[in-house]
Each structure stands twice: as C-alpha cells, then as structure tokens.
C-alpha cells in the first residue's frame, strides 16, 4: 500500500477582506463577494515566502508521519512564487528540516498545479520502490496585479505530503493527468504579475481540463461520484469548484469541507492540496476522497485516495487547517497590504 504517511498545511495569520480591495478600486464590494464568492484572503507576512510556508507545512507533515527526516529520498516544491529564479527552494527546506544531504531536490512549476505535480512524482518514486519516503509540497505567495480581478483571490499558503508505504493514512488508489496547450493564464520571464484571458480561463481551460481528468479517473477507478465522502477541486474563486463539482455529479455536502477558498483565497499551487489537508483533518477510516487540481497553461492531476485506520492516530499531532483559517487573524488595510506585498515603489 502506497500513499500519504504524513501531511501538514500552513496559512499565514494576515488577511485582507475582499470589500477592502473593492473599495480601493471603486468596485462594488457586494458584486465581488457575490460574483466570485470570495470574502477574504490570506496575506504573507513581510518575512514569509514559499520557502517559509513550505517549511511550516512540512514540519507538521513530519510530526504526523513520525519518521526520521533522513529517510526522505526526494523533496519537490511546486510553486509559481519561488523566491529565487535560480536556486531550488527545496535546498533551504532540507537543511531546515534535517533532510539530506543524500536527497533528490527540485522546484516544480505549472501555474496552480505545481503542488499536485510534486505530490504525483513523490508518490511515483515510492511506488516504484526507488525510495522509502518522498515529500511533495504545494505552496505559494501568489501575485495579482493591483486592480486586477486576481487581486481578490491571489493568497498565500501551502500543504506538504510525505508519501510512503508504512503507516499510510491515505492510500492512493488511482491517478490521472490531462494536459494541453491552452494559453489561459501566463507570466512572461521578468514580469511582476501574471496575465490572463478573462472568460477564456473558464470553459476552455479550467472546466475542460478538470472534467477531462475527473471523467478519466472515474472511468479508470470504476467509481461513481456518490461513492466518495469528499471531493476537492482547484479553487481559483468560490464559484468554479462548486460549478465543476455540480457538472461532474458531486453534491455540495461532498465539496463543503475542502471548499476553503471563500475565507482563504486561491493559494495557487497550494489550493487543492490545502483543501485536501483540511479534508484529512476530519476524514474517517475508509472514506474515499476525489481530488483534481488545475494549472493554467494547462493541465489537471487527479487522485483517488482511500483513508485508512491510521488517520485517527495522526490528525491531532499538528495544527489543523480549519483552526488556522478561523482563528488568530490579523486584518490589514489596503495600505498595509500594498506594503506587505511590496506593491509600493521604494528607493533602493
């Protein structure tokens, strides 16, 4: 049996409300919260980035896995906000956690699905017998241009998953990936903020790829939507995951636990992985979980997990996502937010 042996999530304490951003740009706050179903989002502290978020999430994953960090054979971090253009984020993480130096490390990039890519490759290494444990992480401090629709959603957070074959808490039963050349969202080299194709990001991109991966996964697994206790899809806003769930035949109850975007925002590479961590926090043995990520450009990775009896031994060993989402929040005004996100031009 191969699957997740330890998981952890991390969200920064800082928040900004969607209505505060709307007021700044003269938009109608009610229309934004109603249309996008976004109420507030996480904001990284001035001293937080993809690496610090990954370290915090991976520490929780290690606490749950109860393994020697030296036994981890590969570390992959998926993000579109790696702090260095040249120097893998994982090099810093392994030294912080006491992993390595005999370890394979790489940074992954595929818009919002870089995290599920990291998880997929980590899982494949263990399944092939190449190594005992492998760590896959999705984390981001997402960029959204001032005044752009993305500014309401682009947030910060991440989740880490240690794959292994002993004391598995969620077995991975099936996977499927679906990819095509679809220019719905991109950031050119050297640009500060991404660009997107507006409504083109919907049906030809998000819905086509998630549906493509999800339908193939259901066929491959010979399972039906009603077989699953939970489902989680990439969450660029509140509306899209609900809509794609409905089109595939999942109910609101199945989506509810993982649908954390209205109060968290879109953590990009950390989006569906963070939702999965929230589900694992409350899941019971034998629950089936359906997950499909989406990354612009574009592609989707799908996973079917079966929760094992081991889950109850690990859930309380590290902070839970819902606690981080609902407590100890520090709300920022737009000026503080602009400073935190380095949107203000300063002298060198």
């Amino acid at each position, binding site marked *: 049996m191969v699957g997740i042996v330890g998981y952890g999530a991390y969200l920064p*304490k*800082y928040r900004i409300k969607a209505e505060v951003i709307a007021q700044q740009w003269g938009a109608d706050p009610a229309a934004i919260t109603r249309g996008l179903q976004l109420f507030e989002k996480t904001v990284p*502290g*001035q*001293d*937080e*980035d993809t*690496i*610090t978020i990954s*370290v*915090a999430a991976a*520490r929780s994953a290690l606490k749950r896995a109860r393994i020697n960090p030296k036994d981890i054979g590969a570390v992959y971090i998926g993000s579109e906000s790696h*702090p*260095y253009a040249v120097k893998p984020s994982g090099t*810093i993480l392994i*030294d*912080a*956690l*006491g992993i390595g130096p005999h370890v394979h490390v790489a940074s992954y990039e595929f818009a919002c699905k870089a995290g599920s890519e990291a998880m997929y490759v980590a899982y494949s290494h263990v399944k092939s017998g190449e190594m005992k444990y492998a760590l896959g992480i999705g984390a981001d401090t997402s960029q959204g241009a001032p005044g752009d629709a993305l500014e309401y959603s682009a947030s910060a957070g991440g989740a880490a998953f240690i794959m292994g074959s002993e004391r598995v808490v969620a077995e991975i039963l099936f996977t499927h990936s679906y990819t095509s050349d679809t220019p719905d969202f991109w950031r050119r080299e050297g640009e500060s903020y991404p660009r997107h194709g507006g409504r083109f990001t919907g049906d030809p991109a998000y819905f086509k790829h998630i549906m493509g991966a999800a339908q193939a996964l259901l066929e491959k697994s010979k399972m039906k939507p009603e077989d699953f206790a939970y489902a989680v899809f990439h969450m660029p806003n509140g509306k899209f995951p609900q809509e794609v769930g409905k089109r595939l035949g999942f109910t609101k109850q199945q989506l509810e636990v993982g649908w954390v975007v209205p109060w968290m925002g879109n953590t990009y590479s950390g989006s569906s992985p963070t939702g999965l961590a929230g589900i694992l926090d409350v899941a019971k043995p034998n629950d089936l979980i359906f997950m499909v990520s989406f990354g612009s450009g574009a592609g989707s990775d799908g996973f079917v997990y079966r929760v094992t009896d081991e889950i109850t031994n690990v859930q309380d060993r590290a902070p839970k996502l819902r606690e981080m989402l609902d407590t100890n929040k*520090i709300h920022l005004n737009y000026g503080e937010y602009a*400073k935190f996100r380095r949107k203000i031009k*300063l002298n*060198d």
Partner: protein
Amino acid sequence: MITARYHREIPQRYRLEAAKCSSCGHVSFPPRLVCPQCKARKFEAVNLSDEGTIVTFTVVRVASDKFSKETPFGVGIVELNDGVRVTAQIADVHPDELKVGQKVKLVFRRVQEDGKAGILCYGYKAVLA
C-alpha cells in the same frame, strides 16, 4: 559578502543546533570550541526545543535600513524549554501586545536580504504560542 558567514551559521539558525559538553553536559548555543563550565573540548550536537517563554523584550521603533519597513517590532530574549536563552525578533504581533512571561514558539522565517539581488537569509523568529 555575507554568504560565507550565513552558510556557516545554518545549523544554528535553521535547526537550533547546540553543542552539549560530553564531559559536564553544559549546553552551548551557539556551539563553542571550549566548554565554558569545565573547559572540555568534546561536544555532541543537540537540537534545542522550539518552545519557550519571553524573559524580556524591547520594541524597535527606529530600525536600521534593512529592517526599517518592519517597525515597530519586538526583539526578545526567549528562554527555551531546555533552559537555553536565545535572542529573537518577535513576529506576527503588534509589540503593544507583548508581555514578559508569554509563551512563544520559534518558527522559520526570512530574517534579512542581502540587498535587492543578493542572497535571502532565513532563520528563527518567535511567534506567540
């Protein structure tokens, strides 16, 4: 210029790696070549607890250039659960809320940057537990 020093201090700044004297058990952080208690020269590496209590603190309102965008912020002496005291910036809290005796946890954060194009330096900071 700070690259070599930063690299040398990674075990302490990232993992709170201290030196425990093999002779008398005294823990030095950062590690020392000679034990200040018994003058022995053999040590074993130990990782300190990441939980502790604020012993005292000050509030920085006028900081050097590198930290001027973060003011006001607290800097405290934290006594870790294993008795070792460390100095650390206190993050994610307005300094008006700080009190001596508060429980804190050391977390991994970006501590400074070597200019706009230089290396990023990470290490421990304290946050309220």
